[in-house]
């Protein structure tokens, strides 16, 4: 999901802006349309049935694996019965009231929110600073090398990274050895409820900042060099150039990326947390997605699990709509 956000944003920034309205419709070709009369549907279909046939497999698969599950969301209002499937007896908001009575559920929402907010903030600040610094390196080979190095963790799965982190962060792992040799206290990064959320936040930033850097670098290279030339003429220092030209020119990208990440406010990263948490840190580390997984898949409480899922997508959906609206209204950006 985060990838998609990045891709959207970066598409908008790589020179050619993607315009979803244009993607939707072709520009009208006036000449052709007035020349010919519109033929009837049947004769048109006869000419283009091959196209519809080509679309058929995709349509069928999407229908089965995306639209039927969408319909399945009504399970959130039912008492699930395996024999009846998605058409089990209707119980209204029963699953939701059950859910909110669970002592851990509200805590889970808070944990998710806490981890996600700091991930979003760090995921914007760190790449921006890093891109600014990287942009100061003039040797393009060196720049490329660093860019490639920091980019690597992004492409590895959380399973592998979790393995690496478990080894590094364990009680007798490398990090604790370093801490001890420096005369500091060892830390239980994965087992201490106070530290665990920050382990998640920092390791997530570590994984993804290289990727975010690419987006901001693209924005930096598209700044008109004429602006800097003019500033140099006026005797502006490098620092002044950064604060008066680079950062203001980068602001639209930063705002856009922030807005796009707001929809992720309830995504604290299932893959990461699931592979690194343990019951000791449930109090601060259990997030909505891991909760749904345990409830829905492990305990087979399908209806309640779906209710949590629906709750989450409603909140995220509303937040996406609000943030897009605000972006359009106050900053003048249209994403869709």
């Amino acid at each position, binding site marked *: 999901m985060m990838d*998609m956000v990045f891709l959207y944003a970066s*598409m908008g920034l*790589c*020179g*050619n802006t*993607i*315009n979803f309205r*244009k993607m939707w*419709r072709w520009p009208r070709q006036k000449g*052709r*349309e007035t020349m010919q009369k519109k033929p009837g549907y049947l004769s048109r*279909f006869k000419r283009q049935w*091959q*196209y*519809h046939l*080509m*679309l058929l*497999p*995709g349509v069928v698969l*999407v229908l089965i*694996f995306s*639209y*039927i*599950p*969408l*319909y*399945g*969301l009504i*399970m959130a209002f039912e008492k699930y019965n395996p024999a009846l*499937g998605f058409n089990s007896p209707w119980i209204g908001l029963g699953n939701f009231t059950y859910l909110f009575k669970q002592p851990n559920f509200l805590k889970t929402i808070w944990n998710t929110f806490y981890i996600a907010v700091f991930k979003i903030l760090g995921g914007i600040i760190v790449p921006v600073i890093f891109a600014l610094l990287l942009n*100061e*390196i*003039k040797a393009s080979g060196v720049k490329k090398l*660093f860019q*490639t*190095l*920091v*980019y690597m963790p992004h*492409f*590895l*799965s959380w*399973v*592998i990274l*979790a*393995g*690496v*982190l478990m*080894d590094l962060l364990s009680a007798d792992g490398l990090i604790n*050895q370093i801490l001890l040799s420096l005369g500091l206290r060892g830390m239980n990064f994965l087992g201490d409820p106070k530290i665990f959320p920050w382990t998640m936040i920092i390791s997530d930033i570590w994984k993804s900042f*290289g990727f975010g850097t690419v987006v901001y670098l693209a924005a930096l290279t598209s700044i008109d060099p004429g602006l800097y030339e003019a500033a140099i003429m006026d005797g502006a220092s*490098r620092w002044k150039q950064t604060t008066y030209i680079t950062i203001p020119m980068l602001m639209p990208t930063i705002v856009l990326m922030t807005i796009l990440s707001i929809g992720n406010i309830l995504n604290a990263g299932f*893959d990461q947390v699931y592979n690194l948490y343990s019951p000791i840190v449930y109090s601060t580390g259990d997030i909505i997605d891991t909760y*749904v997984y345990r409830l*829905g*898949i492990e305990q087979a409480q*399908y209806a309640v*699990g*779906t209710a949590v899922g629906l709750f989450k*997508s409603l909140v995220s*959906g509303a937040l996406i709509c609000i943030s897009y609206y605000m972006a359009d209204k106050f900053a003048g950006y249209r994403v869709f």
Partner: protein
Amino acid sequence: MQKKKKIRPFDILNYTIMILVGMLCILPFVHLLAVSFSESSAVSAGKVGLLPVDFTLQSYEFALTGGKFLRALLVSVKRVILGCGTNMVLMVLTAYPLSKTKRDLMGRNIYMGFFVVTMIINGGLIPTYLVVTKAGLLNSMWALILPGALPVYNMIILMNFIRGLPEELEEAAKIDGAGKLTVLIRIVLPLLKPALATVGLFCMVNHWNDWFSGMIYMQSPENYPLQTYLQTLLRNFDEILKSAGSDYAQLISMMNARTGRAAQLFLGALPIMLVYPFLQKYFTTGLVIGSVKG
């Protein structure tokens, strides 16, 4: 113009930061590699930093013979080939008609909306799980492939790329009497190669890295793809070592859970480490070719 020979203190600071951050991203993997090549006693004693201590290949030998690593690798390779192939075929078959105008394809915008909606909302984990179960796909390779068989986002990149191709080529082929499928295969597909390489690489990485669907849809560990198998290692490598039996007693004398896990994790990461520098190049070209021009 100014001369750039002068080294500013800022440059020194900047390079220092860059090198530190770069190391932060690389050293954990160097450490992993060092652990995987070291003897267990050295690892337990905390002697292994960035270089192997008491070099041994036992952990790798165990991974390639004793463990279930190779079987999982085979499942993963099969999955990447089948899954990526399915993705490519479906993406091309969908992107090509959608690149046509509303005039040439009745209901084009309806089709488009139908696909785009799935990018914005989805049924979530449990309803999808139930549909896959009801479809009888549990324990089958297709459970890992079919639910995401059409990556809509990549399909749109392809569609935009096709729109950027010169129309005249297709027109000429049509005048020569070529059917629509022939045009697609003979004219469009060869021109589509760079874009296909981009989205293909993305699909490959996604299939390779996905561990979750393997975990929920595969009931017997024999069917686990590599990443799912590696996931099971994270928590219970000790049991795997214990269950390896006496035949392996000699082999595992100098390794433990930590070195064994490190070796298998490193092998699992290796293909991506080899491929990703190229991916980066494709990634940026992919963005340029995918965007709508004008």
